[in-house]
């Protein structure tokens, strides 16, 4: 018998279950791209059969970090840059949970960049959505790791001397096994990509372009966008690392030239970290969290380890 009966529950799921009946209403600015992520998630989750009580959304700090304030799931709004280590540990402790981590471009590619690199490398079975608005939204528009070269803000009054990070390429070299880019202005594709990412066994990284009309005025609404799978101009094999790399490189360049290339960029079937750890005998097959509720569980004692000390 499980102590976590929300997990794996089979039933009709109403989209409305993911929206709270009462406050709080989202406090994002009108026209903010973050609404698009929230909406796409609310659509994708019932579609893949997940209920609010079996999902854990773990967010960082930023406008984006408020995501789970407005989404009815178990939520953990952590600290700036640290959503991934919290999220992956929760998944290790109870891998029945559907774990979704999310945060801003500053949160994930800047202050939390080390965790991004390593969580991708280890291929933890979870979804990671980066709200990429190319600025620090919550702290009032400073230059972020994805801001284009030359970008002016209060912290770079003469324009940004740094070239932006390449988020898709970074995900690929680090070891993510599902990599996609979508945009708030493209709700259908966003929903589909989120659904695929959730179903993917391994680390699924979504670079989600979320316009920030408040601080990124000259910038863009990320339209028109091109879906690289649908467009006839692009033809590459998403399971081929080299082709994927080239396509990512092009998409990252194109964004700063005004062409928004979205879609799936890479998929790999490498086993997830959890599966590898289980195969090595480094992680129990039954979720660890279940054991604490199992009255018949036998707990090992240090007393039985004393041989080596006597």
């Amino acid at each position, binding site marked *: 018998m499980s102590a*976590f*009966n*929300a*997990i794996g*529950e089979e039933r009709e799921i109403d989209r409305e279950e993911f929206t*709270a*009946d*009462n*406050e*709080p209403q989202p406090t994002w600015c009108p026209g903010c791209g973050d609404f698009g992520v929230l909406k796409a998630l609310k659509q994708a989750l019932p579609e893949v059969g997940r209920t*609010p*009580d*079996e999902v*854990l959304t*773990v967010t960082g700090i930023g406008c984006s970090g408020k995501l*789970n*304030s407005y989404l*009815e*799931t*178990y*939520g*953990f*709004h*952590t*600290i700036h840059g*640290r959503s991934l*280590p*919290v*999220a*992956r*540990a*929760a*998944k*290790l*402790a*109870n891998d*029945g*949970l559907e774990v979704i981590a999310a945060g801003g471009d500053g949160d994930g590619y800047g202050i939390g960049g*080390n*965790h991004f690199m*390593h969580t991708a490398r280890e291929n933890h079975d979870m979804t990671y959505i980066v709200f990429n608005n190319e600025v620090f939204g919550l702290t009032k528009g400073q230059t972020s790791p994805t801001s284009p070269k030359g970008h002016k803000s209060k912290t770079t009054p003469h324009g940004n001397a740094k070239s932006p990070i390449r988020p898709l390429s970074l995900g690929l070299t680090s070891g993510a096994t599902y990599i996609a880019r979508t945009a708030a202005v493209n709700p259908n594709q966003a929903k589909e990509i989120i659904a695929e990412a959730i179903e993917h066994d391994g680390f699924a990284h979504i670079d989600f372009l979320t316009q920030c009309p408040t601080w990124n005025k000259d910038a863009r609404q990320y339209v028109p966008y091109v879906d690289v799978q649908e467009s006839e101009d692009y033809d590459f094999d998403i399971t081929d690392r080299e082709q994927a790399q080239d396509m990512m490189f092009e998409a990252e360049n194109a964004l700063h030239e005004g062409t928004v290339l979205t879609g799936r960029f890479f998929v790999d079937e490498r086993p997830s970290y959890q599966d590898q*750890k289980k195969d090595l*005998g*480094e*992680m*129990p097959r039954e979720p*660890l*969290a279940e*054991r*604490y509720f199992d009255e018949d*569980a036998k*707990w*090992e*004692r*240090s*007393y039985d*380890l*004393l041989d080596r*000390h*006597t």
Partner: protein
Amino acid sequence: MSDNELIWRIAGGSGDGIDSTSQTFAKVLMRSGLDVFTHRHYPSRIRGGHTYVEIRAAGHEVQSRGDGYNFLLALGDSFARNPQEDAYYGNEEIKPLSENLDELREGGIIVYDTGLISEEDVEDLNLEERAEENDWHLFPMDLRSLAREHGREVMRNTAGVGVTAALLGMDLDPFVEAMEDSKMTGDVLQANLDIFQEANDIVHEEFEFTHDLRIPEGEHEEEQALLSGSNAIAYGSIDAGCRFIAGYPMTPWTDVFTIMSQHLPEMGGISEQVEDEIAAAALAVGASHAGAKAMSGSSGGGFALMSEPLGLAEMTETPIVLVESMRAGPSTGMPTKPEQADLEFVLYTSQGDSSRVVFAPGNVEEAYEQTRLAFHIAYEYQIPTIIIYDQKLSGENTNVPVSFFDREPEPDLGSTLTEEELKEAAHDASGKFERFQHEPDTDVDNGVSPRSLPGQSGGRYLATGNEHTPTGHISEDPDNRVFQLERRLQKLDSIRAELDEEHESNQTFFGDESADYGIITWGSSQGAVKEAVERLNDAGSPVKGLGVSDMMPFPEDEITAFIESVDEVMVVEMNATAQFRGHIQKELGRYGEKLTSLLKYNGNPFEPAEIVESCELRIEDSDEEPTAQVHIEPAAGD
């Protein structure tokens, strides 16, 4: 100072294998009925550098290093870099001999390996002359050749132990047994056995026994186990049901991390070595949030990186246990040297009013006991609990009765609800569970609002590092703020009450109850202080002592009563700024004029005699400075 004791020092270079050799020897001593205590002195490098392990063994209780020592086995440093006197690190080859002479007691024994330590170097030391002055007994022997003859050069350790056994008149069978029990097998084992025997024979054939020192006698009433403070912390965690650890290597914390990593997978647990300490602490938070008993830890620098996740655990009321293994700071400091200078840091690091529990165990048994307690408190009260200890306690091995560990595990998740219980619990209009109630509807009013776990039906809520409402929503409402903050802090009072009323005190009292002079210490300095207090009383100076472990919540009543019962108190600690004395004054709001400090911060732990000397100076009201490298910081207005 007891005559009936052996303090054996094996000195060589890092990498010469003296750790495992001394471990085996300590076990033999323990099995022969003696109490043992080991102390490790080593530099922060992998090969070479002067290092030693000291084993104190006696027929009575030993809880500390002794003063000096009486048997030196100087192996020579096979990884020595500089054979020249004028080199930056001096002549390293001779160091295992030369560096250890000052502390050798009168009548002591010196065995040195002439295979590595040259005649000329020994002559330069004036060893013969000094031996005469101090009644030292010299036994030069070519241990290296003996080892090479039967096996490999590193086996000169075994040869040295063979010489030791012969000179001390020890029974050889227990050594043979211990070697057979060890990891050695086949040719390696045989070679060691041969070397051991031959070394023994040579001593009897070639040397005259001019010395008086012999192996002390002792007997244990029950079987003993030899463990370090790090073993004890790991075992306390295992018995508390901890099955998740995340960490990043850093001396000396690495010991706990590796012991746990060795055992957890076999116990259905999980160990994660991660990218940095921020991640390590965040993983502990995430695992606990999802329903595992989880821990992490580090030493100073790594613990500094944990500050923000630690605050997150406080704010989200996520139970975690962290261990902080102090070494001399600031910054990288002296990585392999003990110090007690992270107290203020551990008590207050992270923003906001701190709400955490901090225990500082005083010895190996307390390390086990208080780690178990740390998990109990953390999970019952949903609060981070920290074990603060140091390089000294981490590596010191001492014997503990095996029966001490024979008790039930405690894997309970504390104030966590089941799905059944969740059905009865308070929910808001949209069905969200009220995880952070202002006034929890529980039987006890202790500030704890029971939690649910993700994946449970009906337990949905938001955890956030922002101030939050009962269901976890971000809120800056003043009334809600006051409710939540006060409730989180109320837990500390409840914990203090539980510790006072339901548990044996974590504070250790010793010495003469009617004395007018008191010594207070904390953490791992307790053993040396305890021995110093015993000696002072034996010498006719009535003194009482108190070893404190509860750093937070502070044991106000016990410490007030102690200070009130004496005229003056000396606070003994291994740091330069009298941190614990400051803590006492802050917590009690007085006693500035009554608390003198005895401080040591040269990288070596206190020896009992240093405390005795300083204490006598204070009792006699003398203006003299102590001869040891310690500092007396007078009380305010003194």
